């Protein structure tokens, strides 16, 4: 694996005099033995699939359990009716995170980033910027390379699966990826990208994976919102010159270590956390009854 640490990416940026995104693209070119154009086009297709996952949202869809659906529309309606607390960009971020995560629960097409459960975080921060014309497609595709590079390092050093690392490994990783992409889009330095990713990950450290009835629905959909909003705040802090005191690679290693220490009940088994609440248990019992019927 070519991307073992964020430090390695920083070193390559200096040694090869390339921007962050290009280091990641060239790694892909080398690993998959494809041309630079083919790699870029694949990333473009990935982006367009993200965009489509937002555009094809319908508020009347419901998930298998019936627990998920319609909340993105509620957010949009509320924002249309009165001024939100969080302002125009964040209200779109929240609604978009809900919309993509709901679509996932309703068996629509999404881009796993890094997993299906956390698929709403990246589109949530990127699509609103793209829609208002502040960034174009080329810039977005490059920023996606930045986020993929961060995700690859986390996948290599720690984990990107709830079953092995808890939700900090899924939504936490997605937030770090999104924060890095945002800093890149705003012209931040590679170090600022690293600080943003580190802060986003630190702020979700220890987050458990506890899906009710084992379904990627509750709390997953709303966790995409906290992942995205957290990414925005981490990116803005980094762009303001605020630094993560703990170096980014150490934060990543620490996330991996915390994940390994999480009890198995809090790693996707649905034996603890919100899944074990009376509400969670009753949902599970209801679904089992339905299955037997």
């Amino acid at each position, binding site marked *: 694996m070519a991307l073992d640490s964020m430090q390695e990416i920083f070193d390559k940026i200096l040694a090869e005099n390339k921007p962050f995104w290009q280091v990641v693209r060239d790694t892909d070119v080398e*690993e998959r033995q494809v041309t630079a154009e083919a790699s870029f086009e*694949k990333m473009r297709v990935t982006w367009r699939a993200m965009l489509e996952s937002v555009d094809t949202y319908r508020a009347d869809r419901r998930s298998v359990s019936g627990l998920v659906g319609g909340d993105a529309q509620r957010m949009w309606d509320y924002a249309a009716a009165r001024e939100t607390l969080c302002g125009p960009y964040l209200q779109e971020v929240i609604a978009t995170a809900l919309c993509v995560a709901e679509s996932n629960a*309703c068996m629509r*097409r*999404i881009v796993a980033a890094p997993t*299906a459960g956390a698929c709403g975080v990246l589109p949530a921060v990127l699509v609103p910027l793209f829609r208002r014309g502040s960034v174009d497609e080329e810039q977005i595709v490059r920023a996606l390379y930045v986020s993929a590079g961060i995700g690859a390092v986390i996948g290599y050093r720690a984990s990107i*699966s709830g079953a092995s690392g808890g939700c900090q490994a899924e939504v936490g990783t997605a937030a770090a990826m999104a924060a890095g992409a945002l800093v890149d889009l705003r012209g931040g330095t590679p170090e600022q990208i690293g600080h943003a990713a580190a802060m986003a990950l630190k702020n979700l450290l220890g987050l458990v994976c506890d899906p009710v009835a084992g379904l990627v629905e509750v709390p997953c959909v709303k966790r995409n919102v906290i992942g995205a909003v957290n990414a925005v705040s981490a990116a803005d802090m980094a762009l303001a010159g605020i630094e993560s005191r703990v170096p980014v690679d150490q934060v990543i290693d620490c996330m991996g270590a915390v994940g390994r220490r999480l009890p198995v009940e809090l790693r996707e088994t649905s034996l603890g956390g919100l899944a074990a609440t009376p509400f969670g248990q009753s949902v599970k019992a209801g*679904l089992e009854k339905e299955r037997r019927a």
Partner: protein
Amino acid sequence: MLDIFDILGPVMVGPSSSHTAGAVRIGRMARALLGEEVLRADIGLHGSFAETGQGHGTDRALVAGLLGMKPDDLGIPESFLIAENRGLKFRFYTAHLREAHPNTAVLDVEGADGGKLCLQAASTGGGRIRVDRLDGVDVSFTGIFNTLVVRHQDVAGELSRILNELSVSGINIANMSLNRDRRGGDALTVVETDQKIPQDALERIRVLYGVLSATYYEKEAE
């Protein structure tokens, strides 16, 4: 081994890469290795596939795969209906397997031309799969490569005849394994290749002395 499009991807129908996308791939693998339209399927769900499979659409995903769909096909949620229209009959049961990965399915499938296949495969995370058993023989391959499965009599020189047909078509071998079923005299050879295997090479392999059948899974296009 993860590449960056395992991190940003796959593009897939939700809700779960392991319980939905991986399940589609398992179904699709079974159809490819049967080598014909599937008419009947007995599908055993093991572990987490049995417990949360319904909520994740694992059942519909497996049937979608048997119908030839890929993980990003928006027809996946409607696969039961499509199966009915195409004359595919299926049945689910809970399988209790020993030492199997928690996300495992066992598929007994029967084709339009009477072919049969029993495939056991696991969804190993991120939508990736691994086939663990074929017709009672232990195997291990993932569908990351183009995959040729040849059933043949366990006679001397058979493997080299198969490989020869591939090499004259300019095909590079990525991995290979010859697996014997302890109980019978037949062998099962799995060859994973970098290049696609053309139809004429497949036909030549099928008529080799000692070959009982040869089926082929072509890896998903980028």
